C-alpha cells in the first residue's frame, strides 16, 4: 500500500489533495504556499486530476469563488497564508456561517510589517474565531494525512464546517523528508465525497447567505457553537478509522514523556520535534520534562489537555504569534491557562514567545525554556509576562 517518496510539505499536501479528487481549486500564489497550487495546476494540466482550476485575482476572490463552489456542492480546495489569509478574512466567516464544507491549507507565515515571508503562527492565530475547524501538523507525513482527515470531517453531515489544515512555512513546506503516499483509491475510500444536505441547484432553488436580522442571527450563532462542539466526536472517529486503515495514530493532542513529568512544554507545529529531541537529552540528565503538542486547535481539546497535564507542577506554553496587550501574550497560552483553570487544576502556567518571523528554535533556546521551568517549578508566583525566547536584548 502506497510508497515512500522524498517530499517537501507542500508537495505532500498537493499529492493528498489530488487523491481527494476536488472538483474546484481556487488559487492565488503567495510564499511559502505557492508550490501547493502550482503542483495542483500541473496535475490538472497533465490530466492526472479532473478539476476546475481557477486562477483568481486575489485571495479575497479565491475564497469568494470557493464559497460559490462549495455552495453548489463541489468538493473545494484552496491554500494561502499571511497577508493572503488576512485578505480572505471576511469570507472565512461566511464560509463557516453558511455551513459550507471545504478544505483550506495555511502554510503558516508571519504577518507584515516589517515584510516577512518566513514562518510563525501569526496568520493561523488571526482566524481562530472564524468558525473553522483548525488543525496544525508537525511533519510532512502528518500534513499529507491531514488533508483526507479534513475532507472526511468537513463533509460529515453531523459537522458541515470548513476545515483549515496547517503546516509551518519553509521548515515544513520546503523541507524534504520521507512521506508515505497512499494509493489514490485508498484515500478516496477513506474520504468519499459526500453531498451536503442542501446545495445551489436551479431545479430546486434555495437562498444562501441572506440577511439574518436580530430575530435570527443569534440563533444561527448558537447552532455554530453546537456544530463545532459536535465535530470533536467526528474528529475522534476519523482518526480512529485512519489508524485502522493506514496504521498512523493521531489525536487532538500528542504527548511525549509526560507520565512522570514535573514540568512540561506545550506548543504547536514542527518546533515540537526539536523540543522532543531536547527532552531526550534532558531526560538523560534526570530532568523530568515532557511535551504536549496541540494538533487540533478548534474545537480546543481542553479535556485532553487537562487530563495530560494533571500531574505536572508547571507548564510552559510556547506561542509562535504575539498578541500584544493580551493577558498572556499568546492565544495558545490563554486557552491552555483557561482550560486548566476551568478544570480547577492546581497547575501553574507561564508563557514563551518564540520563533517569530522565521527565527528557528535552537537547542540552546529549548534549554533556556526548560531552565526557566526548573527555576519556577517550586515557586508559588510565576511571571505573568511571557519570556521572549531568542530575541536580541
Amino acid at each position: 500500500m502506497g510508497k515512500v517518496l522524498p517530499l517537501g510539505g507542500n508537495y505532500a499536501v498537493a499529492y493528498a489533495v489530488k487523491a481527494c479528487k476536488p472538483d474546484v481549486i481556487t488559487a492565488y500564489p503567495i510564499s511559502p504556499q505557492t508550490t501547493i497550487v502550482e503542483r495542483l495546476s500541473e496535475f490538472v494540466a497533465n490530466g492526472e486530476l479532473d478539476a476546475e482550476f481557477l486562477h483568481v485575482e486575489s485571495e479575497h476572490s479565491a475564497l469568494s469563488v470557493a464559497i460559490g463552489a462549495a455552495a453548489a456542492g463541489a468538493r473545494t480546495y484552496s491554500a494561502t497564508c499571511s497577508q493572503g489569509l488576512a485578505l480572505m478574512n471576511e469570507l472565512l466567516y461566511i464560509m463557516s456561517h453558511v455551513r459550507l464544507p471545504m478544505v483550506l491549507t495555511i502554510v503558516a507565515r508571519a504577518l507584515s510589517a516589517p515584510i516577512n515571508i518566513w514562518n510563525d503562527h501569526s496568520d493561523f492565530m488571526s482566524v481562530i474565531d472564524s468558525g473553522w475547524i483548525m488543525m496544525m501538523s508537525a511533519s510532512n507525513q502528518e500534513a499529507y494525512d491531514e488533508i483526507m482527515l479534513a475532507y472526511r470531517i468537513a463533509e460529515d453531515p453531523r459537522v458541515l464546517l470548513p476545515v483549515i489544515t496547517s503546516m509551518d512555512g519553509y521548515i515544513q513546506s520546503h523541507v524534504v523528508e520521507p512521506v508515505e503516499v497512499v494509493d489514490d483509491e485508498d484515500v478516496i475510500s477513506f474520504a468519499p465525497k459526500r453531498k451536503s444536505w442542501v446545495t445551489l441547484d436551479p431545479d430546486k432553488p434555495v437562498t444562501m447567505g441572506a440577511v439574518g436580522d436580530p430575530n435570527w442571527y443569534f440563533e444561527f450563532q448558537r447552532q455554530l457553537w453546537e456544530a463545532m462542539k459536535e465535530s470533536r466526536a467526528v474528529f475522534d472517529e476519523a482518526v480512529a478509522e485512519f489508524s485502522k486503515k493506514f496504521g498512523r495514530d493521531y489525536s487532538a493532542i500528542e504527548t511525549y514523556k509526560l507520565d512522570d513529568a514535573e514540568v512540561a512544554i506545550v506548543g504547536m507545529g514542527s518546533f515540537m520535534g526539536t523540543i522532543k529531541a531536547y527532552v531526550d537529552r534532558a531526560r538523560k540528565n534526570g530532568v523530568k520534562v515532557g511535551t504536549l503538542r496541540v494538533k487540533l486547535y478548534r474545537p480546543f481539546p481542553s479535556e485532553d489537555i487537562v487530563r495530560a497535564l494533571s500531574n505536572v507542577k508547571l507548564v510552559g506554553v510556547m506561542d509562535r504569534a504575539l498578541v500584544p496587550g493580551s493577558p498572556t501574550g499568546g492565544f495558545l497560552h490563554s486557552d491552555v491557562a483557561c482550560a486548566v483553570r476551568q478544570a480547577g487544576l492546581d497547575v501553574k502556567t507561564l508563557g514563551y514567545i518564540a520563533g517569530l518571523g522565521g527565527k528557528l528554535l535552537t537547542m540552546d533556546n529549548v534549554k533556556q525554556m526548560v531552565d526557566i521551568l526548573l527555576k519556577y517549578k517550586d515557586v508559588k508566583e510565576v511571571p505573568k509576562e511571557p519570556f521572549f525566547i531568542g530575541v536580541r536584548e
Partner: protein
Amino acid sequence: MSLPGWKQIPLGAVILKPGNSVEYKTGEWRTLRPEINQEKCIRCRTCWMFCPEGAILEVEEPYKTQAGKEYRLTYKVNYDHCKGCGICANECPVKAITMIEEAI
C-alpha cells in the same frame, strides 16, 4: 410573535422556500398610490423597468383607447406589494401615472 428556536431552523440560515417574499405584503407601507391612466399610457414599459419592487404588472389584456388605438397589453399595479414610492409616476414619459392619497 413566537419564532422557532435554534434547533428548529435550517442550518446556516439557508432559506428553503424560494420566492417567499411574495408573502410579505409591503402594500400597507403606502401613503400615496399610483394610478395608471390607460388612455394616456403608451405601453413603453418604463414604469415596469423602474419599479424597485416589481409591483408593476404587465398583463395580456387588450385595450382600445377612445381615439381608437388598440393595445395588446395593459399595465397594472400590484397593490399588495407597491410601497407607493412614486418612481413610476416620476419616470413616466407621458405623465400617465398619478400619485393619489389613499383615504383610509
